[in-house]
C-alpha cells in the first residue's frame, strides 16, 4: 500500500459512507484515518476482530509459568534452605509473584503486540508527506485507497472518491 489516493471527508458519517461505498465497489486495500476511534468504520470496512487477545493470553500464561518455575527451581531445587521451618516448595508463597509476572508479561504482549500489529513504530509513511494530512490527528478524516488494490486505477478511483463526497483527493507516494 505504498501509493494510492487519500481522500478527505467532511465528517464521520461521510467517512463511514465513503468507506462502505468503496468497499461495495470492490476495493479491498482501504484504510481510514481519524483523530478518534470510529467503531462503525471498522465494520464498514469489514475489518475482522483483532487476535491480539490471544497473544496477550499467551504472554500472561508464559509469564506466570516462568515465574512459578523459577521460584520453584531456585528455592526448592537449586538451593533449598530451612527458612523459618517452612517447606522449601511452598506454593502459597509463590502466588503473588506468579500473578504479578503473568500480568506484566500480558501487558507487554498487549502494548508491543498492538504496536506490532499496527505496524508501528514507523515515523515516516507515504501518507505523512501529503499536505494537510496532519489534520488527521486533530480533526481531519481521511480515506485511503491503496495503489496495489486490484481495482485501483489512477483516474477512475479518484473520481469514485470524489463521487462519495471527498472534499479533496490526493495522490500518495510515487512522484506526486
Amino acid at each position, binding site marked *: 500500500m505504498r501509493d494510492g489516493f487519500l481522500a478527505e471527508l467532511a465528517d464521520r458519517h461521510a467517512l463511514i459512507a465513503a468507506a462502505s461505498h468503496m468497499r461495495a465497489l470492490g476495493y479491498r486495500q482501504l484504510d481510514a484515518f481519524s483523530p478518534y476511534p470510529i467503531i462503525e468504520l471498522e465494520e464498514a470496512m469489514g475489518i475482522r476482530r483483532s487476535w491480539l487477545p490471544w497473544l496477550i493470553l499467551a504472554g500472561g500464561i508464559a509469564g506466570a509459568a516462568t515465574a512459578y518455575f523459577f521460584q520453584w527451581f531456585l528455592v526448592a531445587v537449586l*538451593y533449598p*534452605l*530451612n*527458612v*523459618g*521451618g*517452612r*517447606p522449601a516448595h511452598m506454593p502459597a508463597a509463590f502466588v503473588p509473584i506468579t500473578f504479578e509476572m503473568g500480568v506484566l508479561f500480558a501487558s507487554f504482549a498487549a502494548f508491543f503486540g498492538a504496536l506490532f500489529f499496527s505496524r508501528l513504530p514507523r515515523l515516516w509513511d507515504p501518507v505523512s508527506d501529503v499536505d494537510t494530512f496532519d489534520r488527521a490527528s486533530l480533526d481531519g478524516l481521511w480515506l485511503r485507497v491503496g495503489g496495489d488494490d486490484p481495482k485501483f486505477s489512477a483516474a477512475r478511483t479518484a473520481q469514485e472518491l470524489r463521487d462519495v463526497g471527498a472534499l479533496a483527493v490526493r495522490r500518495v507516494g510515487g512522484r506526486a
Partner: protein
Amino acid sequence: MNDRNRDTLNRALAGDSGGLSRREALRLLGASAGLAGLGACQQPPSKKILPYVNRPADVTPGMPDYYATSMVLDGFATGLLIESHQGRPTKVEGNPEHPASLGKAGVLEQASVLGVYDPDRATQISHRQVVSSWPAFVREVARHGPSQGLRFVLPPQSSPVLADLVDAIAGHHPGARFVYHSPVSRKEAYRATQAIYGTPLEVQRDFSRAKVVVSFEADFLATMPFSVRAAHDYGKRRHLAAPDGDMGRLYVVETVPSATGSVADNRLRSRSRDIWRIAAQVVSALLAQQAQGLPPALARQITAAAGSVGPWAQAVARDLLRYPGESIVVAGDAQPAATHLLAQVANHILGNVGKSVWLTAPAILDPLGDHDLAGLVSEIHAGAVDRLIILEGNPVYTAPADLEFERALARVRQTAHVSLFDNETSAACKWLVPAKHYLESWGDARAYDGTISFVQPLLRPLYAARSVIEVLGLFSGRAVISDHELVESYWQSRRPIGASFRSWWQTHLQRGVVPDTAAPRATAQATWAQAGAILASAPADGDSLEIRFPVSPAVYDGRFANNVWLQELPGTVTRLSWGNALLVSPATAKAMRVSDTDVVTVERAGRRVRAPILEIPGHADGVVSLYLGYGRRGSERAARGVGTNAYLLRTTDADSFARDVTVTRTGEHHDLALAQLHWDLHDRPIAFSTTAAIYRANPDFTERARGPAPSLLPNYGRSGNQWAMTIDTGICTGCSACVIACQAENNIMVVGRKGVMGGREMQWLRIDRYYKDPSKPDPEVIHQPMLCQHCENAPCEYVCPVNATVHSPDGLNEMVYNRCVGTRFCSNNCPYKVRRFNWFEYADPSIRKLQRNPDVTVRDRGVMEKCTYCVQRIRRAEIAANLGHRDLRPGEVQTACQQTCPTGAIQFGSLSHPDTDMVRWRQQPRQYDCLHEVGTRPRTQYLAKITNPNPEIK
C-alpha cells in the same frame, strides 16, 4: 614470649595485620561499589602477609592460645585465663583452678581486656605536662638518699613481692609511709573483727552449704571481693532441681537495690544508718533463745540498742535458729563496724563460726589503714612530706571532699603519679609515669582467701609504662628493676624446699595459681574486748534525708570509667548506661515532688552537686543514692563529663552514706540513657516467677507457656547435634558479666549515650528486668537474660528477602552479615527484639580494634546482627573433634555467656547430649518458653524464678 608479642603487635599497630587491613579494604570496596552500583565488580588491592621471622613453638597462627594470669582489684586477685590471638589478648575468662574464679569472671574482669587497648592511656613519662624520660624520673624522684618525707599512696595490696619491697623501702627510707587508699574501704569490717578477736581478721564464708543467709546490705553476689566465687557457690546452692528441692533462703536488708537484693527471698528496705539496728534486733531475738558464749554485758547492750524487736527480725531469727551452723550472716562493706560486729555475733550465736563461716588473716597489708589520707594531708600541711608517690588510684578524684587533696598535693615539693591514664590526680602531680596494664605486667597477689596468684603479661607494654613494683623497686635500694625479675627473684628465694625452681615456677605460672595456699583458719578466740565500744559508735537515727554512695556495678569507683563497654553496660537494677542519676524510691520522689529526668541540686554541708532523678522501685524511702565513679574530669574522653561526681559530697566522716542532705529542684531536665523503659509485665507470658510453696503445690504453673506449639508446618529433621540453651532465671542475679563476655567474644561495638537513648544499643545479650508488681514499694524483680531464642519456626527468617537469615541443620538461627541488605523486616518480626542493626558505621577505628576476635566478622554499616550461640566456638570445636576423629563431647562447646556466668544460670549444649544440665533443666516442670503462644518454638528456654520467702513474713 615477649619477642613474639612485640612482633605481632608492631604489625598490628602498623595496620598490617591481615584481618584489619582486609577489613578496611572491604569498606572502601563497599563505598566505591555504592557509587558504581556494582558490588561484585571491584577488586581490592593486593595485600601483604607478614609471617613470623621466628615462629615461637607455642604459637599456631590462626588458633588462639590461653594464658593464666590474675586481675587484682583493691588487693584481691581473681585468677583468669586470657585468650590470645598471636600475641593479642582478646578475651578474659575465669581460671577454673583459681578459688576466686572457678572458671567464672565478673563484669570488671571481663571488661578489663579493653582497658589495655584504651586509646586514652597515658603514653609517655611527663614532668609538668612536658615529655620527659625514665632516667630523668629516676634521677629527680627516686635516687635520693634516705628520706623522712617520702610517702606513697597506693590501692590496698596483697602482693608478697610488694610487701617485700615495702619492707625494703622501710629499711632504706626509715621515715617512709604507705597509705593504702581505696574509696571502697573495708576498714569497718576489720575494725569489727579486731574488736572481737583483738586482731583484724577476714571473714570467710561458704555459701555453697548455707541454708539461710542474712545480708545486711552486703552485695556479696556482685560487687564485694570474692563475689564471683560467692555467686558460683550461691548458684550451685540455689538451683532448684525439683519442686520439692531445697533452695535455702536469702534475706537482704538494703538501701539501694542491688544484684543480691534482687534475688532475695525476703528483702527489707532500710536507710543505711538504720540497718545496724535491724541487725541488732535480729541478734536480740536470737539472744532471747540462745545466749551462751557472749559476754552478758554485750548481750544486754545489744538488746538495749535493738529496742523493741519487730516481727521481721523475729521471723528471721526463728528461721536462723532452725539451722544452727548452716547459716551465714554477712554485713556489707559500706556498713559501720557495728553492723559487722552484730553479724559476727549472730554467726557466733548460731554456731556458724568454724563451719559455714571462718576467719583468716587478711590478705591485704595494713587492713585497718593505720596511715590514711586524712593523716597524710595533715602531714602535708605540717610540711612533713617532701616526696609523694601516688601509685595507681586517683585520690584527687576519690578522696573525701573535705580533705581538699588537690590543694594539699600542690604543697608537696615532688609529686609523681603512676597511672594508666592522665587523670585528675596526674594533672595535680608534677610527674606522670604511665602504668602498665595488668595484662602487660608481672606480679603476684593473694586472693580473698589468701591463695597465691600470679600475674604474667600477655603482651609487651604498648607504651613506655612501668608497673607499681617497678617504681617501688627504685626506692628499695635494690639493683633489680624489671617487674619480671622482681617477681621471679622473690619467688626463687621462697620456693618450696626440694623443688626445682624452674619447674615449680613454670608449672605455677602456667596454672596462674599456687594451689593450697589459702590462708589457714585463724585460731584467735573471740574476746569481745572492744565490742561494746564499737556498738556504742553505731550511727544514730533521725529523720533527716540520707544520701548513700554505692559503688557503681559498672565502672566501680570510677577507675574503669573510660571503658566504653562498662559505660554502655546498663546498670543491674537501674538499667541506666552512660552516667549515673540520683536514685530515689517512687514514694520519696513523690514526697520531694520530683520525677525521672528532673535535675536536682543535692546539697550536703555546703557542698553541692547537680544530678538527674531516677525513680527505682525497691529503693529505701527517705534516702537518695548516687553511684560513685561518674562525673570524671580527667583526660579520658569516654569518661569525661559523663554523669555526676558523687565524691564531691563525701567527707571523711561520711564515706558511704551521709545524713542531713537537701534536694532541690532546678526545673531543668537531663535525658537518661536507659536501656529499658518499661518493666510491667502486663500479665504477658514473658517471664514467670512464683514461690517455692506454690511451685510445690502446683508444679505446672507455667503450663500455658510450654510444650509443643501447634503448627501447620512440617517438621524438619533433627539429627546430630541440636544446639539449645536453658536459662534459670531463679539464679540470675543480673550481674551482667554475660553481657560483657558476649561483647568481647563477638566484637560488639558501642553506640554511645545518644545511641542508647535512641534505642540503638548493640549488645546481643541484654538482661531484661521486670517488676512483678511494680506498684508495690518493694516489687519482686525478675532478671531475664534475653538473647536470640534460635526459634525452630523463626519469624525473622521467612521475612528476609535475600536469605540472609536462615536455619542451620543443627538448629541455629544463622545471620549472614555479608548477605544482609538491611531491610530490618527480621527485627520487626522478632517478638523478642533481640536483633541489632548497624545504623551507622559503628566499628571503632581506634586501637581498641586490637581487642577484636578474629574469628568473628566485624559488621558493616547497614547490616543486622544478633546472638549466634557463639557459632564460631561451635564450629571450632567441631573441627577439632573432626580432626580427632571423634564426636563432640557434652559440654565441649560453651558460649561466652554461659562460660562466664558466675551463678551458672546459663546452660548451653546439644539436645543430643541428654546427660547435661542444659537438657535436664528443660525437663523441669517450671520450664517455659518466652512468648510460647506466638509459636516460634524457641531453642532458648527458661526456668521460672522460684523464691522461697519466709511464710511468717507477710
